[in-house]
C-alpha cells in the first residue's frame, strides 16, 4: 500500500470506528512488572488493535527474546525512561530488543538495556515516533555491545525526540534508507557514531547533544542498497562536543573508518547543510567532508559529497589530536592542528563499467580555514594527498533544504511540532 493509501485507509478506519462504536473504542492494555511479565507484555503487543495503547508499568522487565509489534497505530508507553526498564541482560534469542513492523507506532517513556543486537528497530513502516526513550549498554562502550540504539530503517515519517542512547557499537541514533525524518532534543553519548543519517531523503537533525562518541553526527550515503542518493539533510543547532571515545566498532563496518574525535562528517550525499552548531573538543576535525572511500560496483551510486554547505557553526578547539592516517603529519603542515574543515578534495569518480572520470562538486565551506587534500579522483589513497589551506571554500551560494514537515498527529498533544526555522 502506498503511503497516502495507508494514511487515507487509517483515517477512513478512524472515522468508521468513531461512527460505529464511538470514540471509546481504543483500549488500554496494562502490563505490570512481575512474574511472567515477558509473556504478558508480548501478548499485549500481539493483542493490541489500531488505536490501542499498551501501558507498561514501572519496574524492571527481564526479557529473554525479542519483543515485537506488528499491529499498526499502537502506542507503547512506559512510566518513564528511568522507571520502566526492559532489561535484555538475559537475552537468549532475537536480533533486536524490540522490533516494530506496524505503521504509526509511538514508543515512549521506557528504556531498553543491554540488548544483544540492536535496541529498538523499526523496519518498513510509515510513521514511527521514539519519544523519551533510553537505550543503553550499561557496561560502557564495548565492541560486544549491540550495533544500533534506535534504528528506523526503510521507513517514512520518522520522529525521534528526547531520546538518549549510550554505548552502541555502531550508531546510537541511526536512521537508514528512510524519508521525512526529524531527530531532535536527543542525546547520544559513548557510541561509535552519535547520530547517523544514512541513505536518507529529507532529514532535520537539531537541538541534539552528541558527546563522547568517536564521531558526533554522520551523514552517509552507501552503495549497493535499495535506497541510495541521500539528499536534503539539515544538521543545525546541535552541540557536537568532546567526541573523544576511541572508535570501538568491529572492523568491516563503515563506521569503523570514522576517525576518533570527529565532529560532523558528511560522506557522499547531496544538498546537506550543517550550520549553527556548537562544535568543539573533537580531536580529529570539527567538520569532515569526504567521498565514499571504498571501491564499489553499483553504477547508480554517486560517491561524491555535492552541494554541501557549512556555515555559522561555533567552532571551538578541534583537530588537536588527529586519529586518521597521515593526521599528525597533516597537522604539522597546517600549523600544529587540523583546521576546522577537512575536505578530501575528491571531485570526480569512475562510474563502474565506465572509462573516464566524471562528476561535478559544488561546496560552500565557510567555517574555515579549510584544508583540501586535493585527492581529486575517488579511491585515491590519502597518502597521495597534496594539502592546501584556504580561509574558506565557496563555489557559490547553496539553497538550503526545506524544513521537514511531519504529519501533525505524530507530535505530542499541545506541543509545537513542526521543525524550527
Amino acid at each position, binding site marked *: 500500500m502506498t503511503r497516502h493509501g495507508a494514511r487515507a485507509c487509517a483515517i477512513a478506519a478512524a472515522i468508521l470506528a468513531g461512527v460505529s462504536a464511538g470514540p471509546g473504542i481504543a483500549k488500554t492494555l496494562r502490563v505490570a512488572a512481575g512474574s511472567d511479565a515477558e509473556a504478558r507484555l508480548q501478548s499485549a503487543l500481539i493483542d493490541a488493535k489500531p488505536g490501542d495503547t499498551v501501558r507498561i508499568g514501572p519496574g524492571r522487565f527481564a526479557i529473554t527474546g525479542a519483543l515485537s509489534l506488528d499491529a499498526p497505530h499502537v502506542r507503547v508507553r512506559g512510566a518513564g525512561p528511568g522507571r520502566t526498564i526492559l532489561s535484555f541482560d538475559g537475552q537468549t534469542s532475537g536480533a533486536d530488543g524490540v522490533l516494530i513492523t506496524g505503521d504509526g507506532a509511538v514508543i515512549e517513556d521506557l528504556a531498553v538495556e543491554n540488548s544483544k543486537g540492536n535496541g529498538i528497530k523499526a523496519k518498513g513502516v510509515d510513521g514511527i515516533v521514539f519519544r523519551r526513550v533510553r537505550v543503553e549498554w550499561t557496561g560502557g562502550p564495548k565492541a560486544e555491545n549491540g550495533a544500533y540504539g534506535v534504528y528506523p530503517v526503510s521507513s517514512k515519517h520518522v520522529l525521534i525526540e528526547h531520546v538518549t542512547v549510550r554505548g552502541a557499537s555502531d550508531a546510537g541514533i541511526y536512521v537508514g534508507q528512510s524519508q521525512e525524518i526529524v531527530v531532535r532534543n536527543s542525546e547520544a553519548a559513548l557510541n561509535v557514531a552519535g547520530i547517523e543519517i544514512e541513505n536518507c531523503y529529507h532529514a532535520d537533525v537539531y537541538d541534539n547533544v552528541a558527546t563522547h562518541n568517536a564521531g558526533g553526527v554522520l551523514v552517509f550515503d552507501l552503495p549497493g*542498497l535499495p535506497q541510495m542518493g541521500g539528499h536534503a539533510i539539515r544538521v543545525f543547532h546541535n552541540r557536537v562536543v568532546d567526541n573523544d571515545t576511541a572508535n570501538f566498532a568491529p572492523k568491516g563496518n563503515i563506521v569503523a573508518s570514522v576517525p576518533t574525535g570527529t565532529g560532523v562528517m558528511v560522506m557522499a550525499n547531496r544538498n546537506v547543510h550543517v550550520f549553527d552548531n556548537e562544535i568543539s573538543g573533537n580531536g580529529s576535525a570539527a567538520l569532515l567532508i569526504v567521498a565514499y572511500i571504498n571501491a564499489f560496483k553499483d553504477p547508480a551510486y554517486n560517491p561524491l559529497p555535492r552541494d554541501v554547505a557549512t556555515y555559522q557553526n561555533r567552532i571551538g578547539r578541534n583537530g588537536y589530536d588527529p586519529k586518521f592516517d597521515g593526521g599528525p603529519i597533516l597537522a604539522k603542515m597546517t600549523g600544529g592542528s587540523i583546521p576546522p574543515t577537512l575536505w578530501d578534495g575528491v571531485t570526480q569518480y569512475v562510474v563502474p563499467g565506465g572509462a573516464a572520470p566524471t562528476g561535478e562538486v559544488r561546496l560552500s565551506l565557510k567555517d574555515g580555514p579549510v584544508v583540501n587534500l586535493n585527492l581529486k579522483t575517488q579511491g585515491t589513497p590519502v597518502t597521495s594527498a597534496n594539502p592546501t589551506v584556504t580561509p574558506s571554500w565557496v563555489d557559490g551560494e547553496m539553497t538550503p533544504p526545506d524544513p521537514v514537515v511531519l504529519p501533525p498527529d505524530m507530535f505530542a498533544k499541545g506541543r509545537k511540532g513542526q521543525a524550527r526555522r
Partner: protein
Amino acid sequence: MSPGRTHWAALLSAALGLMCAAAAPRPGVDVARLMSDTPAPTLQAYGLFEDARGRRPAPGVTPYTLNTPLFTDYAEKQRYLFLPPGAAMTYRDRGVMDIPVGGVLVKTFGYRADQRDASAVARFVETRLLIHRAAGWQALTYVWNAEGTEAVLKRAGASLKVGFIDAGGVRRDIDYLVPNVNQCKQCHSVDGQLSPIGPKARNLNGPFEYGAGPENQLDHLAKAALLKAAPNASAIARTPVWDSPSEPVAARARAYLDVNCGHCHSRSGFASNSGLFLDLEETDASALGVGKRPVAAGRASGGLEFAIAPGDPDRSIIVHRMASTEPGVMMPQIGRSVTHAEGLALVRAYIAQMQAAP
C-alpha cells in the same frame, strides 16, 4: 488491519465459510472454522486430521514435501495442503503458487528420539497453520502436549525442551522456540504482508511417495485438479536438493541459501535494507554477497569485511553468522538455536571453490 475493515472481513469470511460449508456438507475439514476470525483453541477442531494425534490427514488434505527445506533445529516436518472443494492453486513460475482464499498450509514439526532409527515415531512439537482468509493470510501455531494427544493454540509463542539423538549419533538437548504470530510474519513476509514462502513451483518440482510409487508433485497436483495453468513439470525450473551429492555444490548451496535466507534476504523481504539478496532468482554477484561489505551488521560482522570473501570461508561474514548461536550475531535471526553443521559445511564448500578476487 484497520478496525473499519475487520467488520466487513469478518462478514465476508463468515459468508464464504457458510457457502463452502453448504457446498460441501461432509465430515472432515471444517472450512467455516478455518475461515472464522476467532481461532479454534485446539487443532483438532478444524478436522484437518482424522485422528486426535494429527497423524492421518483428512480427505482433501494433501501431503507434500520440498526439494530443499528450511532448517529448524533438526526438526522433521510434515507438510499438507488443503484447498476448499473445487478450488485449485494457480501456477506461478516465480514465487509461491497462487493459493486461493480458503486454502490452508499445514506444517507439523517433530522429533524422533533417535533420528538414526527410520522406524521410530516422531514426537510432535507444534503444528503451524497458514490460512488464506478474505482479509489475507493468517498464521496460527498449535503446540502438542507431551502425550501427543492434543495441540493447543499459542499466539505468544513458547519455549520447549527437546532432546534427541541426531542422524550423526550426537545427543542434542535444545530450547525449541515456538514462534509468536509476529515472528511468523518476520519470515513469512512479502512486501510487508504475511504470505507463504515454501510452496514455490520450483521447490515442489520433485518426487513424492503418494502410495503407488514416486510421482512428481506438480504433475500429481495438476492431475488431482488442485493446480491449474501449470506446464508439464519437466518444463519447470527445479530447486536443487541441498543434500544430494549428485548435484553440484554451488547449485545446492544456492538452493540452501534461497530457502534458509532468501525469504528475508530478497528485494521484497524483511532484510531488503541489507542489500544482500540470496534468493535463487538473484544474479548480481555483489548482491549475492561476493565482495559485499556489511551495512548494518554491527558487531555481527565479526570483524570481517565481506559477506563472501571468494575462496575464503573463514573470512566470510555469512559463514561466521551461520556458525554462531549468539543472538544479535546468528543468522537466521530466528528459527534455530543450534548450528546446522551440514548446511554450514555446504556453504563453506561453495565459498571455498570460488575463485579468489584478483
